[in-house]
């Protein structure tokens, strides 16, 4: 097996910059999808709790349908499906949209669990102090719910980071995509995928540890991500 590490050592200066450049795109996909997921998730959570029946039903069904189907299928619908009608979505955008719209359904449930975990007495106390519903929401509910929601959001980011690897199948030039190109040139699939694994772990393990730590310190076992 001496040859294996020898080759890896020799090729490392060439592989690493290419893979790290791909990882930059990976992080980009993750960050943009995260923003879409958080915004969409908050809107969906508020919508699902709405007293307007059509709104709450529509939001519930969006969440159920998205959570009931694979992210890969959703990506393919956006990337290959829309192309059938002449709408060519670039790979990066398709990945961000797909993972963002998918994540919104999961994030919505985190928001809802966090917001509904606050006892109603808090809201009533706000009302009796003469606060408006918006003030109650921003000054009383959100700060308390935030503590509950932080650990599941952290777990969600780890999951999202790993899911960005799917972007390679819609030709977003992220790390898995770059790895495949390098392998087509060199046939060194084991070395290259091991490098890729190490790069992912450099981010996902610290994030995972942070999630565990938050979970222990904010003791919010109620809002664990499904």
């Amino acid at each position, binding site marked *: 097996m001496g040859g294996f590490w020898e080759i890896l050592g020799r090729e490392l200066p060439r592989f690493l910059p290419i893979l790290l450049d791909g990882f930059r795109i990976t992080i980009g996909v993750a960050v943009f999808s995260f923003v879409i997921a958080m915004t969409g998730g908050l809107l969906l959570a508020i919508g699902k709790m709405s007293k307007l029946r059509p709104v709450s039903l529509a939001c519930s069904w969006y969440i159920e*349908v998205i959570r009931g189907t694979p992210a890969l*299928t959703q990506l393919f*619908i956006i990337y290959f*499906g829309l192309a059938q*009608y002449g709408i060519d979505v670039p790979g990066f955008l398709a990945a961000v949209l797909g993972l963002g719209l998918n994540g919104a359904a999961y994030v919505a449930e985190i928001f809802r669990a966090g917001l509904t975990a606050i006892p109603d007495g808090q809201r009533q106390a706000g009302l009796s102090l003469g606060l408006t519903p918006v003030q109650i929401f921003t000054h009383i509910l959100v700060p308390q719910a935030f503590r509950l929601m932080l650990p599941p959001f952290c777990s969600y980011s780890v999951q999202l980071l790993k899911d960005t690897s799917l972007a390679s199948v819609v030709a977003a030039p992220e790390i898995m995509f770059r790895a495949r190109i390098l392998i087509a040139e060199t046939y*060194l699939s084991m070395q290259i995928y091991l490098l890729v694994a190490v790069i992912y772990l450099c981010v996902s393990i610290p994030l995972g540890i942070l999630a565990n730590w938050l979970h222990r310190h904010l003791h919010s076992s109620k809002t664990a991500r499904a």
Partner: protein
Amino acid sequence: MDGYWTYLEQWSPELAVAALQTLRLTLLSFLVAAVLGIPICAMRVADNPALRYFTASFIEIVRGLPVLVLLFLLYFGLPTLAPDLRWSSNACAIIAFGLQGGVQLAEVYRAGLGAVDRGEKEAFKALGLTPFQGLVHVTAPQAFRVSLPPIGNYLVGLLKDTSIASIIAAPELMLRAKDLSSSSFMPMPIYILVAFIYFVMSYPLSMAVRYAEHKTAKA
């Protein structure tokens, strides 16, 4: 719109077969994960600190990787080192999902065991049961009840994640859909149909999980 119905008749039988393959892949991966989770959990709570830390790191590493990386390491990477280890895409998928599920379920089992009241453990000791008897007859059955909802959630996630196996061409629903869409040039209706099939398979399962969650939350 009329045209789609003729296609639907043509696609449905093929997709139905592929859906069964997805179910089989899910079930086999689940079995591997459920069994593998037991020794991993045992090693994770072992008295030997070296073994405990080794297992904890192993869990973090396997859990921190995208399953796609595991699939590629097994399917493309291993044969370049040892040509004997050229497994079928289906086998690689079962191993990769089984391994990742194993570490996930090990943590679920551990949480379940941790949730059992300490008094129960003291009680079986007082009754003169050996630690093993106590685990099998007292602790494990109670832990199992607590673990049921997270195990169910894992199963729902797994069912959808098996679609990723299509990337290494393991025979399942998503791969069939890809083949059909490249031969018919109609990806949209096919992928919508496939999404519907996944939904029909996963929704009842997640309803059952929610029911179980509701029950355990009350108890």
